[in-house]
Every structure is written in structure tokens, then in C-alpha cells.
């Protein structure tokens, strides 16, 4: 993908870009009891339920250094009035460690307020974002084994990180190239290189330059050459797979890289979507259902979960467990691939699939009403299970149930009819049999 990068797996294993995120939770019992007004509570673990004792210490607080998986209890609160113990359960998707527990001792009598600091281990995984200092950010797409990385024949060095050269022409971040080549000279000489703009970084302070060219790159290049490296900072590399020389020389050098805060483990949503999509596709091929009307303003897509009240389409937003929008352009690409069943599944079956009753006489979908079956009570008294009677539906405007048909359609279509009706526009459907009717 665009701006992907490859990290050296061994470098990562040796500690490159390792990190942790701290997250502090404050539990204030006095605040909680004031709100609910249900009496005094304190930190204490239960004696009856020993299952939580591996997580919670005798004081009702977690052990420092303890690993807590999602769904585990990490602190328990005892309510003195109801005589109940309530466990605080860790939410999230990844295990965390208890880093520190701080107690507020202002209240001398009993403990009311604690701070629990959690530590999320965040070592680099595929999908994490990294950047140089020139805005050349990218996403790690592979953790590549060290032996498979290309290596330099003279020094034996393998790269820590590989980026795509296409990141440069349009963005024109020349500074990154200069950083790389200057850092190479700097590390060969064991000295810093001044990066002040509009000033020569390698020339003598007296002003007399050792090189005839005033260009910084030329000055660096000639110094690189003195150390037996290529003038332009490129090196001949050998394939890690075959051990043969790569057909072109590679620009290689040290660049300062940093980790960015966008990490995949915070963006769990997308993966779930792909799995559900494939599953739905298989499902769809095996049991194709009747084709209905297809309306194209489908919004978010997801198999199960909360839906919007009005449109019955899945809601958006990761916090609420919503889906991911399958938009117009995605629709177009599906069409281009000829994946009509998949498209139908995404936009209809997995979204707001709805079977509506339509009156074929007047063509309305809004005037249909259910007729309450009358015999139901009698059956229930006699103790027999109620038979699954066919739904009786009739058209309110035609006052008959003769022309009732069921049509599969997106629920928003019904909503559209209702909205149009509110504007005094009547929408009628003409039903026919067979394809192309």
C-alpha cells in the first residue's frame, strides 16, 4: 500500500521501537456513594469467592506487576449497607499490567480514593505507524526476518527499516535524503554535522572550504568517498534470499525515526470487518436469496449489532460498535469486479434487509396493516399450542387482502415512501413476475 515500510524483525526483537502506554484510572468511593446515595463503601475483597484472589490483594486492590486480561477483576469495592462486594472489571481488548497503585491518605479513617496506573505493552506490530522527522510517515506492513533482508557485502549491515522511494518525488522532502547522507558521514567521522539552513555545515568556520563546490551534497559526497563509500551515498547490496548482487545500488544511511501514536491495537474495527465480509460472501454464494429492489444509499455495513432506529441500517462509530461505510466508490469497484452477489450481500442482506408487504392493487407499501387473528384466545384456553398462522395483512385503502404481495427491499426504501408521503407525494409500486418485469 501507499507509504508502507518494512521493519527488520530482529531489530524489533532487540528492542527497536518498543514502548508502553500508561493509563491511569481513578476510583473515588466518596464520589460514587454521593451520587448513588446508597451508603458507605470501602475497598475490600470477598472471603467467599476465592477466584478473584489471584488478581486482587487483601486490601481489595490489584497486585503491582500483575497482568490483567480483559474481563478480569482488578479491584473490589465492598458496600457496607447492602453487604455486597462489587468487582471492577477491566475493559478493552488487550492484556495490561498494573504499574502502580497510589492511595489517597487524606482521609485517615478509611481509604476512599485510589489511582491505579496500567501499562499497555505496545511493541511494534504490523499496522503501526512510524515517521521520520520530515513528515515521511508510513505504516509497517511487514516484520521481515533479518536473514532475508539485503545485506552490504563490505560491512555486512542489514537495514532496520526499508521504505519505498516513491515517497520522495512528489513530496520533495530533500532534507531526509540529506539527513541520511550527512548522518552517514557524521557516524563515519564520529562527529555531529550542523544542519543549520543557509550555512555550510562541513566547511571550516574560517570560510575556506576544502572542496571547490559550494554545494553541501558535494562536500558530504567527497568526504564519504574518503571513507571508501560511494559519493552519492548508495551501496551495493546483496539479496538476503539468494546471496546475489542486487541489480542496482541502494541509497542507505541512518535516519532518525520515531513512532507515532496511531497503533492498530487501537483501531481494531477494520479487521473484524474483513472477516465478516468473507464469511458473508461464502454464506451468500451457498444460499442466494430472492433478489429484491436495490437502493443505493446504504450507509454502514456490518452483519450483526446495533442499528439506526429510523433507517434500520447499522450505525457508525467504533465506540458504539458500529460498522464501516461501504461507500459509493467501494460499490463501483465491486461492480467492476463483477462481484454482484457480494455487492448485494454487503449493501442489502448485511445492511437493512426488509421484507415489505405491498398492495399490488394500489401499489402502496404504507397502507398495509396486520389483521389480528381472532381465534387465538380460544386456542390458548384449550391448551393447544397456537398454530403459526399465516400473517394476515390487508390494504387499508383498498379494504381487501387480495392483492397483497411480499417484496424484499431495503428498509430505507420504506422510509423514503413515508417521507414522500409526508410531502404529499404518493409512491406506487408496480409489481410484476419474473426477471426484467
Amino acid at each position, binding site marked *: 500500500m501507499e507509504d508502507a515500510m518494512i521493519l527488520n524483525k530482529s531489530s524489533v*526483537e532487540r528492542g527497536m521501537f518498543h514502548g508502553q502506554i500508561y493509563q491511569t484510572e481513578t476510583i473515588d468511593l466518596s464520589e460514587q456513594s454521593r451520587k448513588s446515595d446508597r451508603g458507605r463503601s470501602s475497598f475490600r475483597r470477598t472471603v467467599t469467592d476465592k477466584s478473584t484472589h489471584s488478581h486482587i490483594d487483601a486490601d481489595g486492590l490489584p497486585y503491582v506487576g500483575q497482568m490483567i486480561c480483559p474481563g478480569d477483576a482488578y479491584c473490589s469495592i465492598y458496600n457496607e449497607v447492602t453487604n455486597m462486594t462489587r468487582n471492577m472489571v477491566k475493559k478493552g481488548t488487550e492484556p495490561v499490567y498494573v504499574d502502580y497503585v497510589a492511595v489517597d491518605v487524606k482521609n485517615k479513617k478509611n481509604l476512599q480514593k485510589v489511582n491505579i496506573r496500567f501499562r499497555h505493552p505496545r511493541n511494534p506490530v504490523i499496522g503501526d505507524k512510524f515517521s521520520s522527522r520530515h513528515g515521511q510517515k508510513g505504516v509497517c506492513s511487514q516484520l521481515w526476518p533479518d536473514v532475508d533482508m539485503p545485506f552490504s557485502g563490505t560491512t555486512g549491515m542489514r537495514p532496520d527499516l526499508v521504505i519505498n522511494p516513491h515517497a520522495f518525488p512528489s513530496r520533495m522532502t530533500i532534507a531526509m535524503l540529506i539527513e541520511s547522507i550527512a548522518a552517514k558521514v557524521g557516524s563515519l567521522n564520529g562527529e555531529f554535522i550542523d544542519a543549520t539552513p543557509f550555512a555550510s555545515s562541513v566547511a571550516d568556520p574560517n570560510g575556506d572550504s576544502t572542496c571547490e563546490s559550494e554545494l553541501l551534497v558535494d562536500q558530504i559526497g567527497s568526504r564519504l568517498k574518503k571513507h571508501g563509500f560511494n559519493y552519492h551515498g548508495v551501496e551495493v547490496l546483496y539479496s538476503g534470499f539468494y546471496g546475489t548482487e542486487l541489480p542496482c545500488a541502494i541509497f542507505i544511511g541512518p535516519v532518525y525515526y520515531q513512532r507515532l501514536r496511531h497503533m492498530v491495537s487501537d483501531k481494531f474495527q477494520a479487521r473484524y470487518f474483513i472477516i465478516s465480509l468473507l464469511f458473508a460472501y461464502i454464506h451468500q454464494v451457498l444460499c442466494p436469496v430472492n433478489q429484491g429492489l436495490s437502493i443505493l444509499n446504504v450507509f454502514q455495513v456490518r452483519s450483526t449489532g446495533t442499528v439506526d432506529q429510523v433507517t434500520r441500517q447499522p450505525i457508525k462509530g467504533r465506540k458504539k460498535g458500529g460498522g464501516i461505510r461501504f461507500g459509493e466508490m467501494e460499490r463501483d469497484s465491486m461492480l467492476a469486479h463483477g462481484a454482484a452477489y457480494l455487492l448485494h450481500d454487503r449493501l442489502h442482506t448485511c445492511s437493512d434487509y426488509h421484507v415489505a408487504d405491498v398492495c399490488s392493487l394500489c401499489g402502496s407499501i404504507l397502507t398495509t396493516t396486520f389483521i389480528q387473528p381472532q381465534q387465538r384466545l380460544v386456542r390458548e384456553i384449550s391448551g393447544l399450542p397456537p398454530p403459526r398462522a399465516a400473517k394476515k395483512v390487508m390494504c387499508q385503502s383498498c379494504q381487501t387482502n387480495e392483492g397483497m404481495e411480499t417484496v424484499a427491499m431495503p428498509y430505507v426504501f420504506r422510509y423514503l415512501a413515508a417521507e414522500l408521503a409526508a410531502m404529499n407525494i404518493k409512491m406506487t409500486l408496480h409489481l410484476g413476475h419474473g426477471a426484467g418485469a
Partner: protein
Amino acid sequence: MDGASYQRFPKIRIREMKDDYVKFELRDTDASMANALRRVMLVEVPTIAIDLVEIEVNSSVLNDEFIAHRLGLIPLTSERAMNMRFSRDCDACDGDGQCEFCSVEFHLRAKCMTDQTLDVTSKDLISSDHTVIPVDFSDSAGFDSSEQRGIIIVKLRRGQELRLRAIARKGIGKDHAKWSPAATVTFMYEPEIHINEDLMESLTLDEKRGFVESSPTKVFDIDPNTHQVVVVDREAYTYDDEVLKKAEAMGKPGLVEIYAKEDNFIFTVESTGVIKASQLVLNAIEILKQKLDAVRLSEDTVEADDQFGELGAHMRGG
């Protein structure tokens, strides 16, 4: 073709050998073999490294995982590793890594009692096996050995304490970089440089000088007496094509011709110190042989024998 054998007998000539460094020539084989050797040296030669850490007390500034990671990266002397078992296929202990055949136990107890910062180093790790100890770099680094106290794990201030038990196991670099015995393994093709003397004589001395200086590494030089361009160190050539470009820029293409000898390699091996570099090469060859044996004995190869006929027999060393 009847009875023709494609088998070659590679030769090794050692040029330079130190404890943690070896340079040798590998002759009469091809890139696949050279690269296989490199790859085995990097990730398949077993070593011993700390794999399991049980932390009893840790009041230092670094958290438990951090210390465990640092412990894992400490090089341990691994001469024993080739004869040890992987803990996953150890019969004596059901693979839980608690027996002498597959694991080594370490203890570390450190507490700072003074106002001065206490460095907890690899020297503080007490091993249960005197053959597996943290690598001592003090003599090779050239520092005063009284000052050099091993690899720093963590620093403690007054009152801080670190107490832990660690289990070291045999492993290979493929599983985790901490088990890699090689710091650097690299090889290059031996270059063959031919100077076209007639064309070279047509150059002036200044042109010759320019030509010699066009190479970033010192491959060519000018003989002070005869003013002839001579090859002083052909192995310094890095295949950068600089001299060829220079020759072309001077309008004299074909001034020098440089070929890579396809079947001669110059290896440079640097060990991390866990085993001697020479031993690393020997172990790598041993493992490569074992891997080839596995191929030879597998059923697939027997089947393939029918398919390839003569070539199949050759593959099995016939």
C-alpha cells in the same frame, strides 16, 4: 552424460582468525551454497539465552518486562548449546524447561544499600552451570578489567532491590534475535580485474591519477617508478562500478574489465562472543549437513529420484 557427476568439493582457506572474528575464502562452490552458509550462521546455529524470568522483587525504575527483555539479550557462553536439547523436545522434563539437559538456571539478587548508584550487571547473574555464564568482554574490549563490570541490566538507587530467577534455554536465531550467535556474516564475490595495458598506456599521468582516485576504495595505484597503473588490492573493490564509469567518462571504455568470480567467496564472520567465530562456522556446516541429510532421507526425495534419475542420485551425494 552417463556417469557424469556435478558434485564439487568446496575448499576453505582461512585468512585471519581471532576469537570473535574470522575471515576465510570459500572456493569452488556457488552463491546458493555461500548464502546457505551465511543464513545458517545467522539464524540456525543454536545458542543459549535467558528465556524465562520469574521476578520476585523489582523496585527498580525499569518495569518487569523491560528487565526480562534486557536479560534475554545478554550473551551467554554457548559451547554446550550444540549438545543440549531444545526444551520443547526434552524427554527428561516434559519440556517444561527445568532439567540439566535443556536449561540453565540463573539467580540475581541485588539491593542498593549505599547512597551511590548500584549498577546491576551481567556479572551479578549467578549461574547453576559453570559452563554457561554471561560472556566476559573485559579482556577483549581493551578496558581496565577492574572498571569493566559486564553488561548493565539496571541501575539501583538506595533502597531499591531486584531479585529474580531466570531460566536460560537453547534456541535459534530464527525464533528470536537473542539466540543469534552472529553479529555480522557477510560474503562477497572475489573480483577479477584486468587492466587493458595498451589503452592504459595511452593515458597521461594525470589521467591515470584521476582514474586511480575515481575508486572510493584503494583498488588501484600508480607504480612510482614505472608510472604504470597496478592493482594493489582487488578485494577492496566493492562492485560500485565507479572506475568503469570513470573510464567511460574519459572516453576509454574497456580500460579495465572487472568480473566477479562466480565460485569464489570471501567470508567475514563476526561472533557476538557466545561461541568462537571459528566454532560458529564449524557448527553452521554441521547444521547444514544435518539439514541436507533430512532432505536426503525424506520420502519425497526417494520419489523425486524416479523423476530426476541421474540428477536425483547427484542430489544425494552420488
